[in-house]
């Protein structure tokens, strides 16, 4: 089992992350990767009609605490489903629309576990890890509000006792 967690300013390369995940054991039957991109608009509030054109997105985080919280999320996922490897990369700093912001890669014997772990980690990354997004909308800076839909997405893992 190998877990890699990185919070970094630099961009990441999907192909090399995939290759690295694959190379860790020959027993892997499934690789699931998720990549999140910065959208070209952002909703400031929990209102689907309030989208505005985005100039830049700046991510702040709490160094030390963020990495530990991500490790806890991954550990919790691995208590539910088994895997061979998990890589989580989250970028911080100033990003522009269409840039890569987050990567989750999971290898497992069968696809079900890899899909579940990737989804679980993403849902909790959004609601538990200490990141804060600030948007610049045509010169106007504003902190993004937490979205109810994200809280709801994470809550589904505590409701489904048969997961």
């Amino acid at each position, binding site marked *: 089992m190998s877990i890699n967690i990185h919070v970094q300013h630099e961009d990441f390369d999907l192909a090399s992350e995939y290759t690295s995940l694959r190379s860790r054991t020959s027993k892997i039957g499934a690789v699931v990767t998720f990549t999140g991109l910065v959208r070209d608009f952002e909703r400031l509030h929990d209102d689907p009609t309030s989208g505005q054109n985005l100039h830049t997105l700046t991510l702040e985080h709490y160094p030390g*605490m963020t990495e530990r919280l991500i490790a806890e999320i991954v550990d919790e996922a691995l208590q539910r489903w088994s895997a061979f490897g998990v890589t989580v990369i*989250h970028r911080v700093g100033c990003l522009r629309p269409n840039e890569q912001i987050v990567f989750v890669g999971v290898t497992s014997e069968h696809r079900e576990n890899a899909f579940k772990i990737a989804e679980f980690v993403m849902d909790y990354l959004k609601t*538990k*890890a200490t990141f804060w997004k600030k948007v610049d909308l045509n010169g106007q800076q504003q902190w*993004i509000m937490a979205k109810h839909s994200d809280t709801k997405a994470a809550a589904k893992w505590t409701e489904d006792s048969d997961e």
Partner: protein
Amino acid sequence: MINLLFFGRLGDLAQNVDHSIVYDGQLRTPKELVHELEVAHPRLVAALREPQVLVSVNKMVVKWDHPLFDGDEIAFLPPVTGG
């Protein structure tokens, strides 16, 4: 010394706040610290008291009546928005 960290929009509101406090040996809690900021920084304190704001001591989320000691790092955490 007790070090204070303010994240997200709390950081904007805390720009004029002294981020390190001399520990005078008197036992305090995050709740008491916030109370002490109230007169000078009412807007910040109103934001800190919003129910979704969490407090951590040495990078662990704690209750607002958690005892503080010399060398502690206190962080005020608004709802997170990563991913």
